[in-house]
């Protein structure tokens, strides 16, 4: 077939239904919005730019606009960053350790301070929150007889939207959180219902207590 005879537009139209933009191969959005996503759908979402785009739209709706950290918080983060740089130059340095930068935590099992143990399985989860240049990092580590594989869901209260999953070391880190209220749910391996539910208030407030 010569170039003049070839109908490129007809072929482009014909291939369009095979494109992710058309959603012909995608699950209904009701299924896409299910929490958690079944494994087969997760595989599809990983390969489908259209579904990934839809899920990011859903996450943007469910998660409120991250609050901008206030001046006091930013100052504390800056001081902490400087402190760490000084300590890098002067190991074991002379500066006292800072108080936790953002630290109000409440919930049924909440204690006080920058880290605490939460009963989980036959052991505990160690929950630590650490100031970082881009916000606050939360770390969950399975200890004792706690399952080494677990899922942590974090998001606005009542709508945990972001998921962290342990790899092999029994730890999840959720990074760069802005000040605000978050719901944290932790599920054991294969569980459908959370075993741990906490509300985290990451704010400028000092630790409750």
């Amino acid at each position, binding site marked *: *077939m010569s*170039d003049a005879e*070839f*109908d*490129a537009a*007809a*072929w*482009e*139209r*014909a*291939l369009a*239904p*095979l*494109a*992710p*933009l*058309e*959603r*012909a*191969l995608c699950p209904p*959005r*009701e299924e896409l*919005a299910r929490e958690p996503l079944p494994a087969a759908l997760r*595989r*599809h979402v*990983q*390969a*489908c*730019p*259209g579904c*990934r*785009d*839809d899920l*990011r*739209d*859903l996450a*943007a*709706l*469910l998660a*409120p*606009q991250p609050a901008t950290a206030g001046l006091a918080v930013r100052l504390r983060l800056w001081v902490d960053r400087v402190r760490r740089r000084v300590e890098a130059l002067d190991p074991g340095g002379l500066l006292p350790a800072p108080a936790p930068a953002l630290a109000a935590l409440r919930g049924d099992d909440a204690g006080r301070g920058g880290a605490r143990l939460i009963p989980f399985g036959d052991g505990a989860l160690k929950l630590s929150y650490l100031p970082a240049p881009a916000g606050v990092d939360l770390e969950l580590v399975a200890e004792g007889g706690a399952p080494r594989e677990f899922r942590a869901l974090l998001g606005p*209260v*009542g*709508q945990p939207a972001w998921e962290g999953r342990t790899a092999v070391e029994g730890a999840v880190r959720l990074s760069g959180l802005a000040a605000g209220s978050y719901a944290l749910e932790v599920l054991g391996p294969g569980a459908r219902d959370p075993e741990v539910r906490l509300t985290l208030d990451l704010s400028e407030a000092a630790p409750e207590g």
Partner: protein
Amino acid sequence: MGDLVARAQGGDPRAEEAIHEQLRPFLTRRLREARARRNWFWLTDLDDAVNRVFAQFFLALRAGKFEFRDPTGLEGFLLRTGFFVIMNLKDKARDARWLSLHDPEEGGLRFDVADFARSAPEDLDHRECLKMLAAAVAALNTNRRDVIERTLLGQSVRQICEETGRSGSSVSGLKFNALKDLQARLVEQGFLERCGELLGLGEGAR
């Protein structure tokens, strides 16, 4: 709020009005924020979208699709209803060819036709056709493949020019030659016999 929801589920218009009044500012704010964050440039009439969401929301309530536990759960249900309404509006924008899935936030082109074909449900007729297309796309040279993948993601020639720095004639030429390569390879592999009817390709496409 639980009482209002129960009454709205029974079709009480005054309860619906009260819920609407309480939740409208919340929904409007969330839609406005999400529109800005996700660049929903096609969502031009926010009030209309909010009204559509509430219409669906009250239908769903009356249909018993929601069980009230707490106000936060109700807000979540309203937002999920909003998601479906917004996705319908997005589909309309897509039909008008306003949309592209090429997402710079995802590092640009993150689309592998072969992966996409493997993830399609087994029972879909499209799956076999997509597999054949994936093999043919994989055999294209790098530049033609890039243009075809961008086209499948919905990018227009103008958008491809903007992102690749190529001229309009260069992109059009690459696209034409890529489609011609695809046609030759697909026809040779029996694509027309297997998928021609499904995709509206007649004998003239041979």
